[in-house]
């Protein structure tokens, strides 16, 4: 079974609203990453948060990490149509493997 799982599976919001998605994982990690995938394309790295960090910002992205609950959240503020994509968290279970969950599909309506 996969190390990480995103929730919800799908999310539909109005342009300008915030989008929040969560990732839960099973075992201890070194770091956690979030990626975006536009339809039919490869994944693109968004942000990396280390296991000793609790929160990180990058532009309109805010990521939190709670290692005690084995969970992370990704917040996209003031969403735009271009944010329509699937979002994946990636974890490593303290080894060299890079594991992804099933992703959250975000649709931003104009």
């Amino acid at each position, binding site marked *: 079974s996969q190390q990480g799982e995103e929730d919800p599976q799908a999310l539909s919001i109005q342009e300008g609203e915030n989008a929040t998605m969560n990732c839960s994982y099973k075992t201890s990690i070194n770091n956690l990453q979030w990626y975006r995938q536009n339809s039919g394309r490869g994944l693109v790295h968004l942000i990396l948060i280390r296991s000793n960090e609790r929160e990180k910002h990058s532009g309109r992205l805010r990521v939190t990490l709670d290692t005690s609950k084995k969970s992370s959240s990704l917040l996209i503020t003031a969403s735009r149509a271009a944010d329509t994509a699937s979002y994946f968290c990636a974890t490593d279970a*303290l080894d*060299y493997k890079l594991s992804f969950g099933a992703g959250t599909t975000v649709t931003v309506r104009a």
Partner: protein
Amino acid sequence: DAGITQSPRHKVTETGTPVTLRCHQTENHRYMYWYRQDPGHGLRLIHYSYGVKDTDKGEVSDGYSVSRSKTEDFLLTLESATSSQTSVYFCAISKQGGTDTEAFFGQGTRLTVV
């Protein structure tokens, strides 16, 4: 964009035939990964490599083998293709293993087994 190329981009093959997908990088990154992506499953790791001739299995490795004879090339072989291996395959590279550094992805190979 990171220099990573997958070939072919699309392939249709018959059940029972061997198929090889190629991932080529120009970044000299040590780690290379092969994933398959299917609806409802996200990306699942097939095999990965942590150096020339150094490979290990992922979570869905049955029916697949890999080889890495040069830093820049990571080959994925379906020994005898089955319809369940119809999928989109992605290659990824990273400078360090796991989540220590960002991974860069290829554009994907859409494989159909008929």
